[in-house]
């Protein structure tokens, strides 16, 4: 192994080791580089969460807005709180607001993405996959809000029970119980063969 590789390794390790909370502390003072690291770490998770909590074509806008608001409200960061709980509280509120807007009849809340969609007839497997995605979405929509949110925070966002509880304003065991009931109901709704 070449000696020249060592300094590079050290720098990478130092970045990896900074916790989300330490990075957010730096973001609170206006550190855009720390913000960038947080976006890198959580972009995929937030998008996954927003897509499952609303619709795939809304996920990009809601994800962008989540990070924009995180940056705008950075000065309100309180050391000692969990970063993922804060991040997903922002995402959750945006998704809830979207749902409320929809119920008032504002169905076309965001542009439905048209570009990049295949014009040719999709192969059967693709149709099957789309049908699966649609079935999952319908099943999720029919869950009680508290169960759906807990389930998505745990699995789509990858939060542990205490962070799920913190984001939802309940304790970890309540969060676990919501995930439990949500998963049971989802299994009933989707039948034996997924």
């Amino acid at each position, binding site marked *: 192994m070449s000696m020249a590789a060592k300094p590079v390794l050290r720098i990478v390790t130092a970045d990896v080791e900074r916790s989300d909370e330490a990075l957010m502390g730096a973001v609170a003072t206006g550190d855009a580089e720390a913000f960038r690291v947080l976006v890198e770490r959580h972009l995929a998770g937030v998008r996954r969460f927003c897509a499952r909590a609303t619709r795939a074509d809304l996920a990009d*806008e809601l994800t962008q807005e989540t990070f924009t608001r995180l940056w705008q409200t950075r000065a309100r960061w309180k050391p000692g709180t969990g970063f993922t709980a804060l991040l997903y509280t922002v995402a959750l509120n945006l998704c809830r607001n979207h749902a409320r807007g929809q119920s008032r009849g504002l169905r076309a809340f*965001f*542009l*439905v993405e048209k570009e990049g969609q295949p014009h040719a007839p999709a192969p059967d497997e693709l149709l099957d996959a789309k049908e699966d995605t649609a079935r999952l979405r319908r099943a999720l929509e029919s869950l009680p809000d508290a169960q759906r949110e807990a389930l998505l925070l745990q699995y789509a966002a990858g939060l542990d029970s205490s962070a799920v509880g913190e984001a939802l304003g309940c304790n970890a065991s309540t969060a676990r119980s919501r995930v439990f009931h949500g998963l049971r109901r989802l299994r009933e709704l989707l039948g034996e063969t997924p």
Partner: protein
Amino acid sequence: MTCPDEAQWTEFVVSRSEPALEQHLAACPACQATVAHLTRLTQRLASDDVGLESRLSVDAVVATALRPRRPVRALVAVAASLTVLAIGGLALQGRQPEMETMTARGEAPAWRARVTTRLVSTSAGLIEPGAVVPVTTRFTVASFGVLATDQLFTLAFVADSKGVVHWVAPTWLDERSVPTAAALGVDGGFRTNPEHVLSLDHSVAFDDLAPGPASLVTMVLDAPVSVLAVERAWQGDAAGLRARFGEALVRVVPVELR
């Protein structure tokens, strides 16, 4: 051997905290199937395959988040039936701007609409490129042209010298909401009068427009896109908006705010 019930297996999958169940699981194909199904469900929730590719990149998300945004409280909007009268005068003066033709993508010459929207001053009317515009100007949007049967939407904003976007249409008063493009007031059927002029039912003045070179931007589209999508695509000229909203008509009028 009695199998644990489904509730117990769900609990097991959710918290993975019961070693006794693991022993049973290792020896029981029926329960393995139950656990496998529950696990597949959780994996589907965790999958990035949500049905649509993301257009986001880390660079773009960071750049957009760091871009300054107009303070919502600085926006003043009033219902102003007077603007209709003011704009009505424009048509009589024969000062309609050039109209653009909107066609369906991929279709031959058949057009869907001939229309343009422009930001206008409620006191001075149509604002031409290069005009000197007082920062206290009250803006509204007028649409000119022959409109098709399709429902069309318009967006209009002032981008000042600091790069801050100030929305005229739709108005954006509440930061907790994200408004979408305003519907152009077409009530069905082709409009055949080329002098037809429509205007919004409100006008807007801002108390925080930065003096200097500014852009008055108007768009016409066939979908109610959100102000956020437009802010994200705005890079200081029409090109970014055209790249993002392929079918939109985009008009950028450079002015000097003073």
